[in-house]
């Protein structure tokens, strides 16, 4: 079926896709006459989940669990199962995804294809390190079970492989135990980058989760304010008489796309000011797990606030001289006066990623979003790209809609090796853009 209403999280389209709904139609996707790409819940920000003028295989409806081993925590399920399903169904039984990104509305297949990371990267690595095995359908008619021990080359290519090695139909993920649905959060303000690094060194050795918000409206040089958040899953003892699994709060929805972006210099300045001020200098508190991990999931379709032109995310990892590069980037952003609602800063750990094309690697990651203001926004990105390049870094394909071929090559030197495993019938708008090939 031809559809024009499929978009990514940041790009409003319109795009033209042939679609095959894997759960509804009996059609064999291999009969598609154009290149195909699996589409889960469309939470990639840019065009890595799109296949404009080609075919998307809608995988969200492949949503059945297969087996669960309550001893080991290994859950095998269809690839369209969402992390939100797993959180809802397994937290009451004492299990939680080993790694989760900032939204739970992603399919497991999508999480694997982007080898997503979370606030616990410094101890757990990215999600690929917790995938026991997966089933991959290839255009040659095969269905291959891959794991670190079986077809390991294909496995490593599929983890973080942007859906280009075939159709992931199922996977087995090792969940982690939790005693409660609560988090014990340590929150601390910082006023300089040095302060950030010293809190970070302390927090990473003590807490499983660590991330911080940083203000990109004010400050210069070393003077950058922000709020550091570290946390652990709370134990049954720590929550006292509270309900073991707190009731999920009500969600709100942004009902329509306003005719212009509600995110402008004024609202961003106000928001940053407010966020810094509401945070205490330093405190510890208990917080339900959902708002801790997924603060934005409480507002459905929040991407609409950026108006009809949509928005860009810019997430990079800085590898060499990261502190210097970070200070430079912050200066460029503040001077551009395009600052972002949510700038998130995190130190990645050293656990090697499981995938050939994985984004997360030892270094400092900074993630920002910007309303699409055309050329001014793109000029800012070019300036940031230069800093990322000189810091030996990379941009995150799951967030990207504009990186150049050179930028991709520099960030992903193993792309050549990856191409050996790519399925020739699979492609994406992203892939065509950064490689110039199908």
């Amino acid at each position: 079926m031809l559809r024009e209403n499929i978009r990514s999280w940041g790009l409003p389209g319109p795009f033209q896709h042939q679609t095959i709904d894997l759960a509804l139609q009996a059609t064999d996707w291999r009969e598609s006459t154009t290149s195909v790409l699996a589409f889960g819940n469309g939470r990639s920000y840019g065009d890595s989940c799109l296949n404009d003028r080609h075919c998307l295989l809608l995988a969200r409806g492949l949503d059945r669990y297969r087996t669960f081993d309550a001893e080991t925590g290994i859950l095998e399920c269809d690839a369209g199962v969402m992390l939100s399903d797993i959180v809802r169904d397994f937290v009451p039984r004492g299990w939680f995804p080993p790694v989760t990104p900032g939204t739970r509305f992603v399919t497991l297949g999508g999480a694997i294809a982007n080898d997503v990371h979370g606030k616990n990267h410094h101890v757990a690595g990215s999600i690929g390190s917790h995938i026991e095995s997966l089933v991959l359908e290839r255009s040659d008619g095969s269905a291959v079970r891959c794991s670190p021990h079986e077809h390991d080359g294909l496995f490593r290519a599929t983890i973080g492989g942007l859906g280009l090695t075939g159709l992931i139909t199922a996977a087995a993920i090792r969940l982690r135990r939790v005693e409660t649905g609560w988090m014990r959060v340590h929150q601390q303000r910082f006023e300089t980058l040095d302060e950030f690094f010293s809190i970070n060194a302390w927090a990473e050795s003590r807490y499983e989760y660590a991330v911080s918000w940083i203000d990109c409206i004010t400050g210069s040089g070393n003077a950058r304010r922000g709020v550091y958040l570290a946390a652990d899953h709370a134990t049954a003892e720590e929550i006292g008489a509270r309900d073991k699994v707190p009731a999920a709060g009500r969600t709100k929805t942004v009902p329509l796309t306003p005719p212009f972006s509600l995110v402008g210099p004024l609202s961003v300045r106000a928001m940053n000011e407010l966020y810094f001020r509401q945070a205490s200098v330093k405190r510890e508190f208990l917080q339900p797990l959902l708002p801790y991990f997924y603060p934005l999931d409480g507002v459905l379709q929040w991407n609409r606030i950026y108006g009809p032109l949509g928005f860009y995310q810019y997430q990079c990892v800085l590898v060499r001289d990261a502190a210097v590069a970070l200070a430079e980037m912050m200066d460029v952003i503040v001077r551009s006066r395009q600052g972002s609602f949510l700038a998130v800063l995190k130190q990645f750990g050293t656990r090697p990623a499981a995938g050939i094309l994985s984004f997360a690697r030892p270094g400092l990651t900074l993630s920002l979003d910007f309303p699409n203001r055309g050329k001014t926004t793109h000029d800012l990105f070019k300036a940031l790209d230069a800093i990322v390049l000189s810091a030996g870094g990379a941009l995150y394909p799951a967030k990207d809609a504009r990186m150049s071929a050179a930028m991709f090559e520099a960030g992903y030197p193993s792309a050549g090796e990856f191409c050996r495993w790519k399925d020739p019938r699979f492609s994406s708008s992203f892939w065509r853009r950064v490689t110039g090939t199908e």
Partner: protein
Amino acid sequence: MNRVVIVGATSRIAECCARRWASKGARLCLIARGDERLDRIRADLAVRAGGNDGIATIRFDALEFQRYAELVRTAYDFLGGIDIVLIAHGDLLPQADCEQDLELLRTSLEVNGTSAVMLAEAFAMRMAPTGRGVISIIGSVAGDRGRRSNYVYGAAKALVDRYLEGMRHRLAPHGMQIVLIKPGPTATPMTATYGQPGVRLADPEHVAELIVHGIERGRTTIYAPGMWRWIMLVIRHIPERIFMKLSI
């Protein structure tokens, strides 16, 4: 409310209902045509329920009328009593084909109408003496008024409507809850091949939520989503001579 029989358990709406009941700890007897989907659904529900023991599957074809009594007995024995019956099987055979092929027409009427009410009666024979329990059938908004585009399916669903009305009249005073569910067009495999562009299909998860919640609340007619109650109210009351000119 934790012993549930589902006939047509591979229907997407029924599956979504079963998930909700399984997570609440219900024991389930799943009856469906024997394809491998039933095994996958069973495995999924077992994960949700935290074990395989409370779930049984029985394979049957809706037109094997002579097996109905045995089905009821098997389900009753496995569950040790029945709290909820959901009859959900159906087949949206193409209207135009039914107009040309009387055998197909008969199949459509029997699968969507006769078999559903006969099963309901078969379960009622066993449940009525206990003076409690829920018997529910998935009908359709298509049963609310005959339309040229699908009156064969619609008429079968209308049979279900009238039949349950009578059963309710008879059995409600004895403590039974007789429920007619009327989903609007829903995104399921059954409707996939008849995709009408422009019609927004409801999400089966949402439809299931309304069904499970409605049954819990003691409702007897459940439109899902709820707006269909008002849409069909209007459609039912359009005067015939105007209706004839509409292509809905």
